[in-house]
């Protein structure tokens, strides 16, 4: 659960397949890819439009449904297993686990995507500058990345989020602003963003390093292009594939990290829903109410898997295009 994007990127790199097998593998990968895409689209639509989708109940709603005697009852105490009333069953408080899982997906996706987006902007810029100019940024980034790799990010995240709670509760001001806004949601996003900067920067740096050796960059310089123009026109567009791969792999890693963090109590606070939090709340009841633990875990797994599948495919696709020239 370290945020080590490049590790995952390299482990997912398989050696080139011989053509016949490659074709087969490609078609199978196709299936994985389309599964991933469908899952993500379905999930994203549900997550971001939950309020307007009739079959998704409210995150905090405690529905009353017809019990065995026909009267309306609360579904508390895990009264309902997975079924027509409650697709994923009900939880201890009688809330609908399906709805909770969907809202948890919204949280996980928002936090991960915003963090990776931010990290791409900051880390991408730093990485590009480092790769192009080398020098001190390069050294600082490599030390930071080494430092991050030397330590599980989940611990630093938990530590900082815990302290952010105090910061939010305190009267401390920064530039005249208090920290009232610093909810857990923001804390998680900020720390994820922060922790993702160095790995993203490292990948972008490596890419930039190799790109800046490319002759078209030399050509552009020999044509008298200024550095900003070279960075924006020549290098940036060629970073896109790597960045897309980073987005997918990075989001997958952050989803997993959010799950772990929520499990140890450092993502959003109840009553907000998070997969890891649901697992933590319900795991001791797995004997009686397996659904309350298994479905959130399944959602987490499938979503991470989907991002990995799509990311894997995207990375390969761009690679193939590059090398087939």
């Amino acid at each position, binding site marked *: 659960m370290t945020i080590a994007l490049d590790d995952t990127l390299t482990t997912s790199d398989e050696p080139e397949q011989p053509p016949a097998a490659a074709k087969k593998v490609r078609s199978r990968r196709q299936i994985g890819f389309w599964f991933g895409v469908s899952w993500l689209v379905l999930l994203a639509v549900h997550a971001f439009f939950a309020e307007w989708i009739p079959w998704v109940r409210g995150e905090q709603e405690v529905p009353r449904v017809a019990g065995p005697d026909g009267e309306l009852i609360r579904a508390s105490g895990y009264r309902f297993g997975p079924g027509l009333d409650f697709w994923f069953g009900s939880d*201890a*408080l009688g809330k609908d686990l399906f709805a909770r899982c969907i809202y948890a997906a919204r949280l996980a996706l928002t936090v991960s995507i915003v963090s990776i987006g931010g990290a791409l902007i900051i880390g991408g810029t730093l990485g590009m500058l480092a790769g192009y100019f080398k020098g001190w940024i390069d050294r600082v980034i490599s030390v930071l990345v080494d430092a991050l790799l030397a330590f599980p990010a989940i611990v630093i995240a938990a530590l900082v989020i815990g302290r952010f709670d105090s910061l939010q509760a305190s009267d401390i001001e920064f530039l005249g602003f208090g920290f009232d806004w610093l909810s857990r949601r923001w804390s998680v996003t900020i720390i994820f963003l922060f922790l993702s900067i160095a790995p993203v920067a490292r990948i972008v740096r490596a890419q930039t390093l190799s790109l800046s050796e490319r002759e078209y960059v030399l050509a552009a310089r020999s044509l008298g292009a200024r550095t900003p123009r070279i960075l924006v026109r020549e290098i940036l567009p060629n970073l896109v594939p790597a960045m897309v791969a980073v987005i997918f792999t990075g989001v997958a890693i952050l989803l997993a990290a959010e799950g772990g963090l929520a499990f140890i109590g450092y993502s959003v606070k109840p009553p907000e829903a998070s997969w890891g939090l649901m697992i933590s709340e319900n795991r001791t009841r797995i004997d*009686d109410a397996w659904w309350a633990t298994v479905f959130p875990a399944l959602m987490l797994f499938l979503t991470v898997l989907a991002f990995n599948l799509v990311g894997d495919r995207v990375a390969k696709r761009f690679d193939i295009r590059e090398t087939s020239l």
Partner: protein
Amino acid sequence: MLTRPIKNRRGLGRTAVATLVAFTLVAAACGGDDDDAVTTDTTAPADDTDPPDTDDTDPPDTDEPEAPVVTEPPAAEAEVSYGGRIVVGVEAETANPWRPANMNCASSCQFIARTFFDPLVAVDSELDWEPYLAESIDINDDATVFTITLREGIDFHDGTPFDADAAMQNINGNFTSLLLSGAVKDIAKGPDGSVLMEKLDDFTFTLQTGFNGDPDNPIPWPLFPYYLGGQAGLMASPTWLDAAEAGEADETQAVGTGPFLLTNYAPGDRTTVQRNPDYWLSDDDGNQLPFLDEIEFRVIEDSQVRGEALRSGDLDIMATSDSLVIADFADDANFEYVNQDQFSETNYIMFNLTQPYLADRDVRCALLQAVDTVDLIEVVAGGASTPSIGPFTPGQEGFLTDNGYLGYDPDAAAEAIAAWTAENGPLTINYSTTPTVTNLQTAQYLAGEWGAIGVNVTIDQIEQSTLINNALFADPAFDAFGWRNHAGLFVDSQYFWWHGSSISPDSPLSLNFGRLDDPVINELLELSRSEFDEDVRRGYAEDINRRFASECFIIPTSQTQWGVFHQPAVQNIGRSPVPDDSTFLRDGAGFPGQVWLTAAFLAD
């Protein structure tokens, strides 16, 4: 009254409803009982002989609480045998350090501590206090002077002799410590702040009372000896205490006189104690105690997990207050148990009464009326607990089945809140909770119910010790939190939790977490402390109960029931002898969820 038939699937129970575990300072069982209680009082203070007049008594309530039925614990089925090791599962571990003066000790911590510390007195199976490490305690007629005579020939584990100097050093340390001084504030103190004691000989000394420590204002305190059965009466080696104070000894490597020696303490995980071969006590048959070689206490927070561990044989003894687990095991012929359904705690939601909006009775009562405790128990505890309407549990002095409790009325609550907000603007309540699953669920439930009557609720997760520390020392930042009240039978043991003098700056420590400073309750507590007549005293206690109900100072939610389950091989639970007496030590008295292990042994 408020019980409903409970239909539920097995094993859905939770550790009681809202449990922020209170630390237990005082062994608070009572000798003076209801008329029909089985009591044969021989050594108790002269509280029955000379009842002073009181004119401020309500007639006894018609709903007499059911008297505790005291039964003789079962005799061991097997021949006693020496040796063996048992593992005990407890729900929490709140000590730290193990110095009696500084321990923040909840009931499971008392369970552990009393294997290596002995108290000066202990409560017997008939609920009377009995001299334990002390040989006797003489009380003068108006219960203002206590002469304590110690047993001779007892050494601490490190060889330091247990004598008057040692006991006085302990008492002075304990009675003046930050945590305990509030509990024994009415013991006289000298000008230098130390406890006023007079050493009569090497094994005898006296203590005297004094209102707020003032030696010139002695007050009768007939029940004081019970306090010596709690944390304040635990005796630790002065050699070790001095060394720990100086930083030369580990303050977690406790040295007492108890039946076991503390050999390994792993905070938050386990405590291991080993047999003290030189223990001073033998059983009635003259067998040297204790029998067991080693006991390991293991902290397993989740009661379900603790139950499973007992079932799988990982544990030999397990204490739980989870009603469903209790129900589950009570049916199980494979295990034996001690049921502790009296003098135990009440779960309630405590308010911070210094918040202006919570000082408003209308707001408090609205918040109370918004909560359907039956439903809350149903939701959070699988319906297995008994709802509570006041601060007392059955058996406790002052327990009533009808105290004027307002009860669930969301419409009235919504109305009251609407009226309040129309005048004062929106109302936001910050509910603090420790981040355990059950407590978080309670918090979510309350947020829902209070939200429904128009109150904004924020939930603040905070670590237990931080919460308690903040409540004890600082201005409380919370609005409300779930609390498991203090066990005990008589209302005097709640004095320091509810009396206005237990609020800083009057007291160094705000043991009165909710900052309850109600003149009526203050006066009733003071009267009760000095009252000899148990009926009159119960009247005061019932008045306190009614006052709580009418003022909505707390939201009572459920009563705690404790069960201590053990493998049948563990014998003699409940048969730890009282020295020089035919009775046994009362398991769980004041410290629900614990049993004495001095005479326990493992049958083959």
